[in-house]
Every structure is written in C-alpha cells, then in structure tokens.
C-alpha cells in the first residue's frame, strides 16, 4: 500500500484516532469514568477556590498596611490606663500624656536616617455648615501628610507650607464629611465653622483614616475591616467615624491652644498632648527595622509609663506576608494531597481497567500493536480522564469564589495563572499516575494476555 503521508500528518491522525478510541472506552464505563474524574475535579476546584480566597483576604490587609507607608514608623499617643496615674492626673484636672516635643526633637536629631517627621494633633468636635453640624475628628498636620500616608486628594488641593507658616484657616475634608456637610453642593471654596473659627474648604481627601488599631490587628488575614475604627482619644470608645477635617498643625495649636478642652457627656475633659500622632519616615528602606528599634529604646527611656504606641507598617507587612506564606503552604499541602488522592484514584481505576482489558491488549498486540501503541492508548485515556476532570474542576473552582463574594461579601481574587496552573497539574497527575498502568499493560506477554479470561 502506498500512502503519501508526512510523518507529522500521520502523528496528528494517530493522536486523533487514539483520542476518539480513548473517549469510546471511557464512554463505555460512564459512571466509573465520572467517579474517577471527580477526585481531580475536587482537587482542582479546591486549589483555585482556596487560592482565590487566600489572595482576596490577604490583599485587603496588605493594601491597608501598604497605605501606611512601608518606610514609615508611626507613633501614637495613648491615654494611660494605669489607675494610680490616672487618679493622680485627675486631681490636676488636666490629663497630660503622650508624645512630647522632646521626643520629636530627639528622634529628629539622634536617630540616623530620619528623613521627614510628620507630627499631628487631633481633637474631636462639631463642624458646622451654617446650622448643620457633624461630630468629626479634627487633625492638625503638615503639608506633606497625604503623600506620606498614601492618601489621595481627589478634589481641590492640600494646604501648602506657606499656609502652614501663615497659620491659615484652611481645611481639607474627608470625602464622607464633605458629603454630610454639603450634600447638594460643591464644598470647595465654602466655609465651615469649628468652635469660633471659620475655615475655608480647599480640598477633599480620599481614603479612610486607616485605623492603626485595625492595622495592628491585621497581621493575619482576617483583619480587613471595612470601616476603620477610630477610637479617638476623646471620642466615645468604639465609635465609628470616617468624618475628618484636616487643618495645618500650626493653625490648630494657635486657635485651640496646648490644652484641648471638650464638654462631653455632662463633664469637662481637658488634656494636654503635644502630638497625637507622629509619622517618621526613614530614608533607607533597609534601615527601617533598626531605626524602629532605636526609636523604641529612645521612647522607653523618655517615658516612665507606656503612654504611646508604635506601629511599624513594614513589620506588619512582613508579618502579613509571613502569615500568607504559611497559609499558602497549608493550602498547597491540602491541594497537593487532594490531587494526589485524585491521582491515586485514577491509577487504581486504570490498573483495574488494564486487568479487565488484558484480553483486548492481547488482541491488539496480535493485530500489530507495538508496545508504545498500548502505552499511548492507556496514557491518553488517563490524560483524557484527568484533563476532563481538570476542566470541570476549573469551572467549579471559578464558580466557588464568585458565590463566596456574592453571599459572604468577602473579597476573592482569582489570579490569571491559578486556573492554568491547576489544570496543568491535573494533566501532569494524569500522566504521572497513568504511566505505571500503561507500561504494565504494554509489558504483558501477548500469548498470556490472549489466554486471559
């Protein structure tokens, strides 16, 4: 017989025929094939779903921490909880605690690599637009605050160095506060009142005031609270607020003095805090951890009691990354085990199939099949089985995160490579666990195979 076929054509044609043959054999035992593929379906689906959930959960935590700035060290004043001290302080009527000018000076002068220091003072009061008021946080800070803390000015602008020097009465409102105070009109250029002073609105700032409480707690994966909690020093504990007014630090000190007074829940409270928050930026990313250590020692020396808190975003980020890494290892192990179990299931069935089809193998060998023909026949069957299982698994694996996002309101992220990886692994499993049964089939003695009942 003369056939002018190129070797390549022949290979493709053979593969096609083998695939059809494999599908026929699998179709003969539909239920068995389906049950066998199910192991791979669940393996692949769980890999994709778990990756998506893990990725989504850690993404939120990491985003928050990153916004704090990975080269920053954030220091906050904390009202001491020590009863003895509190009692003593109460007698003097003015509660004095927290980060001081001295701390700030020493950090600036003695810690190597300190680039910028962003001090901030905070108070809580009503902000008025004519007769309409909102209880908000007032933050006195410096002109480079948005850049340092990764917050975007979405409309207008932030205040300038000049406005700081001039102690201007300008303010930038958080998007939520702007909406509450000016529900119908553009707030920019309008004026709001704080106690007896009027402030001109020059910009709107985006982003929640990232709660450092939340960030501190979100070393793990679960810390992606949507609304940042602002348990402000003067606010009622647990009160949630994204209402924020930012004014120049200089203006805050001049207008409202060193001692912040507030009439609240029937009694006066007065406190003296130099800075509620200080952000220190270290110029060398590699020196952040050592500088943080130095600052910690410095503050320990200066403060008898712990009336401050230190947050190192880089440290949190590393911890979050580490947690994610552990999570990924756990997840990877579970996925690997489930896929291996699936693969063993396939191998088990294929070995049974080979035994069951010993006669067929003998017949094919008698009719001219080479050993490699038999190997490829059985290997193609396992790859078809695991590949089909893999495809269904990808579909199920993509559906699960969607369902979770829809009904559990959790962020899930399916990385583009995850389905491809999971599918590839399923095919590799098919080959790996199909090789032994296939070679066992091909290695059988044709005469004995033909005699097999």
């Amino acid at each position, binding site marked *: *017989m003369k056939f002018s076929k190129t070797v390549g054509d022949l290979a493709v*044609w053979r593969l096609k025929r083998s695939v059809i043959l494999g599908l026929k054999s699998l179709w*003969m035992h539909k239920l068995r094939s389906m049950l066998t593929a199910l192991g791979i379906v669940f393996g692949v689906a769980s890999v994709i779903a778990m990756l998506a959930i893990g990725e989504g959960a850690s993404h939120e935590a990491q985003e928050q921490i990153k916004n704090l700035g990975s080269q920053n060290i954030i220091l906050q004043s904390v009202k001491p909880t020590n009863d003895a001290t509190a009692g003593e302080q109460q007698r003097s009527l003015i509660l004095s605690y927290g980060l001081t000018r001295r701390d700030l000076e020493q950090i600036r002068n003695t810690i190597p690599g300190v680039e910028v220091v962003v001090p901030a003072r905070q108070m809580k009061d009503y902000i008025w637009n004519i007769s309409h008021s909102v209880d908000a946080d007032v933050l006195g800070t410096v002109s480079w605050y948005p850049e340092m803390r990764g917050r975007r000015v979405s409309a207008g602008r932030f205040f300038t160095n000049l406005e700081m020097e001039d102690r201007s009465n300008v303010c930038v409102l958080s998007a939520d506060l702007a909406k509450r105070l000016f529900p119908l009109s553009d707030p920019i250029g309008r004026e709001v009142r704080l106690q007896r002073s009027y402030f001109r609105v020059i910009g709107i700032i985006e982003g929640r005031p990232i709660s450092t409480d939340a960030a501190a707690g979100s070393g793990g994966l679960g810390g992606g609270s949507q609304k940042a909690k602002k348990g402000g020093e003067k606010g009622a504990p647990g009160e949630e607020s994204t209402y924020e007014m930012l004014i120049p630090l200089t203006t805050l000190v001049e207008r409202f003095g060193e001692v912040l007074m507030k009439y609240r829940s029937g009694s006066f409270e007065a406190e003296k805090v130099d800075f509620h928050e200080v952000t220190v930026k270290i110029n060398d990313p590699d020196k952040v951890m050592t500088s943080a250590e130095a600052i910690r020692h410095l503050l320990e020396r200066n403060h008898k009691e712990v009336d401050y808190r230190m947050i190192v975003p880089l440290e949190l980020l590393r911890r979050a990354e580490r947690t994610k890494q552990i999570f990924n290892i756990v997840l990877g192990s579970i996925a690997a085990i489930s896929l291996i179990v699936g693969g063993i299931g396939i191998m088990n069935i294929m070995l049974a199939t080979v035994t069951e089809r010993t006669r067929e193998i003998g017949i*094919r*060998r008698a*009719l*001219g099949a*080479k050993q490699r023909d038999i190997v490829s026949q059985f290997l193609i069957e396992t790859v078809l089985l695991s590949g089909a299982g893999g495809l269904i698994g990808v579909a199920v694996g993509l559906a699960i995160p969607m369902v979770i996002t829809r009904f559990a309101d959790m962020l899930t992220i399916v990385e583009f490579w995850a389905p491809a990886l999971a599918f590839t692994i399923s095919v590799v499993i098919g080959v790996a666990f199909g090789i032994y049964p296939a070679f066992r089939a091909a290695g059988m003695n*044709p005469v004995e195979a033909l005699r097999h009942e």
Partner: protein
Amino acid sequence: MQAGRRAIIELRQVEKHYLMGSFLVKALDGITLTVYAGDYISILGPSGCGKSTLLNILGCLDQPTTGEYLLEGRDVARLPDDELSQVRGKRLGFIFQSYNLIQQLTVVENIEVPLYYQGVPEAESRRIATDLARQVGLGERLDHRPTELSGGQQQRVAIARALANDPAVILADEATGNLDSKSGGDILKIFDDLNAAGKTLIMITHDEKMAERTPRVIRLRDGQVVFDSGDAIVRPSAGAALSMKEG
C-alpha cells in the same frame, strides 16, 4: 520439497521450553517444517501436544527457545519486539477459537484495527473494512457490536479482520471449536474459498472430518511432528490408521 513452489515458512529444529516449577517442559521438541505459498494445512494432535504453542510461534506471538524460523526468507526467531509487532500486523492473520473481537468497537471498526496499526488513512481503511465485511456476508451489520452477533457471525468478522492487511499466512486455532456444525461449516467454506483464491492457511483442529478437507495434514505428539502428508492429499482414515499404529 518441490521445486518451483515458494517456501513461506521454514522452521528448523524449533524447540520451546517452559519451566514448570523445577521441571523443564518441552512444549515443542525439534520441529522442522516448510510451508509453501498456497498451502492449506490442518494440524492435529492430542490435547497438550503443542499445537497452540507451534501456532503462536508461527504467528510471531511467541519466540522459540532454540531453532530457526524464516518467514518469507527473513529470520524472525530473534527479532526485537517492535519488529515482531510489525510482522504480525502486516504478514500474518489470526483467527481464534473465542473470536477475540473488541467489545467496544463495531463490526467495521474491529476489521479496521490491523489497518489502524499500519497507519492506513481513515477513508481507505473504512473502504477496505466495508469490502471485507461484505465478502464474509456481514454487509448489513457494519455498525453492530460483537454482542449483537451470533458466534458464527463473530467468527466471520474475525476472518475479515485477519484478511485486512492482506497477510501472507492465515493462522486459525480451533476456529470452529465454539460453533455448531452448520456455522462451523460456513467458516470452513470461507477457508476453502480463500485457499482457492491462493491464500496460505494453517489451522488447528480436533476434528478428523475437518482435516479431511485440507490437502495437507500435520500430526503432532509430545511436541514433535509425527506425521506430515506434505502436499499429498491424505484421507482421514489413512491418517487415523497411521497415528494409531504409532500410538
């Protein structure tokens, strides 16, 4: 033996040994045999005398322990596995007692199996298989599965399959052993026709009556050829008498 006739198969001192525990069983014990193109041979002998073993070696399914085997002049006694497969697929056709069709394939597909392993293109292979199915009287049942056919019909599919690659020799191991006399007769009729058309056939049988139809008869006992009629037409009575005398 005879000048002018082409030898297809030449066996010289072929032995096949099996180890049964510590016993050495000589299933074939020095077989020397020449088969010519166009031969029509019955192999007879008591159970366990080595008929199947001989046929498996002739069919390149098995290899002799010692001795020489030339198939169409080519030494196939020590070929590597791939080449043996090639020889089986191209030059030899098998017919088994239990039909040995592949259950998940239809009639045509079964006939196509040997063509597939020789790389015959789909359309060509379909045409050859359909023609052969018609020749054995199964033109109406091309798409039936083996389970939907009678034993005789299944054996006819097996014959068509054995003919697919136009082999040099057809080997049948008790091809009618599972059939009633009517279907068995049909099969033998096909064999006769094939031989009349020039095909070389070697068949194992237990039935002296069947051996009657074939021009040449070979009798085995204990792995040895005890009688070979050569190309002379042997009457069954003569053959039986001879084997009785020797027994």
